[in-house]
Each structure stands twice: as structure tokens, then as C-alpha cells.
């Protein structure tokens, strides 16, 4: 039996992938920006989630029976990255769906005022 937390997190990942491929079709998985953003998000997840799950003074306390048993990096239950991927990809899919994305050209025009070198 797969423990509940990794099991349902993996299921959530599959549901979100299915939602994109067969329903929403935003094309987000083909965008470099999405994958870079997810890498940045995971990097920042480590200190925040690490703080929340540290075994010495946890904010969130897990029943060991529902966990895979892998706690890495820090004391983070590793399946938490599947959970986070599903949740944050879902919000990004709905964000894409809810509004038109600016083209690179529009962004560059606007970026004239921003991010000056």
C-alpha cells in the first residue's frame, strides 16, 4: 500500500497533467518561463517548507503512517514537492486560462521602464 500523502500527491500531479493536456491546453508545459519559475519556486520552498516541517519545532506535524518516510531536503517530506507542483501548476493553469498572456514584444516595450541594466 502506498501511504496516503505521497499517493494522493502523485494522483494530484496526474490530474493536473491531464487537465492541461485534455481540457485547458494552455501550452504552459512548452514554455521555458514556466519551468524556470518552477525551479525558482522549489528553491524557495526549501527554506519556507523546511521551517514549517523541521522536526525540532514543527508548525505542521505529520502522522508518520501517511508519509513515504523520505524526509529530504532538511526535514521536508519529499512528497511535499509533488503536492506543491500540483497546487502551483493548477493555479498557474487557471491564471493562464483567465487572461491573455502578453507577447514578448509587449513585455519588452513595458520592460523599457523596468529592470534597467
Amino acid at each position, binding site marked *: 500500500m502506498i501511504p496516503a500523502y505521497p499517493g494522493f500527491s502523485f494522483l494530484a500531479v496526474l490530474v493536473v497533467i491531464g487537465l492541461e493536456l485534455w481540457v485547458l491546453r494552455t501550452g504552459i508545459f512548452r514554455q*521555458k518561463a514556466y519551468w524556470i*519559475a518552477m525551479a525558482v*519556486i522549489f528553491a524557495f520552498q526549501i527554506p519556507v517548507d523546511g521551517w514549517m516541517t523541521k522536526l525540532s519545532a514543527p508548525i505542521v506535524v505529520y502522522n508518520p503512517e*501517511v508519509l513515504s518516510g523520505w524526509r529530504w531536503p532538511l526535514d521536508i517530506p519529499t512528497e511535499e514537492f509533488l503536492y506543491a507542483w500540483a497546487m502551483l501548476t493548477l493555479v498557474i493553469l487557471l491564471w493562464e486560462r483567465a487572461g491573455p498572456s502578453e507577447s514578448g514584444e509587449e*513585455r519588452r516595450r513595458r520592460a523599457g521602464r523596468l529592470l534597467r541594466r
Partner: protein
Amino acid sequence: MDRYQYLILMGLCLVLTLPLEFLFGARVWRRPRRLLTALVPTAAIFIVWDVIAVARGHWGFNPRYTTGWNILPDFPIDEVMFFVAVPICALLTLEAVRNVLARFGKEDA
């Protein structure tokens, strides 16, 4: 002060990502209707999952580091703030990355 730890951590996530909105031009906070359209269903689904998991004893929140302002048994408002703050941080990151790619790269992000 300890009991505000979770809430403060979520507040810090929102404060520390604010520069993405204003220095990197993310325009997430400034499109509130679009933000809510993405955020509300996502938060709702994950809060339902969370409430069920807490009720079944899969995980819980340390009373020492949470406010105890419970909206359901053993379910503090702090945890709702998690499902508000973290997705907003993610959207800010995505839009900021797009702007950086558009600014410094040639291709359409």
C-alpha cells in the same frame, strides 16, 4: 509571539515577493479579478483536501506555533492563509521570470 509564527511566515512570503510586482513588473496584485479566478478554485480544492486530511488525522498544526483562531476543529485560519499566500508567490514568480526573459532574451517567453 510563538503562536503567530505560521501567520508571520505567510506574511513574510507575501512581503518578500512584493518586489516582483513592483520592480519586476509582475502585475499579479494589479489584476485582482484574474488573480481571484485562479486563486479561489485552487485554494478551495486544496483546503477541502486539507480539511479531510486533518479530520482523518493525517496531519495537524502545532498549537504552539499557530494562532488557534480555528475556522473548523483543529483548523486555524493560518492554514487558509497558506493557500492564499503560496499560490500568489508562485504567480508573481512566473510573471517576473517572463519579464526577465523578455527583457534579456530575444525569444517570446
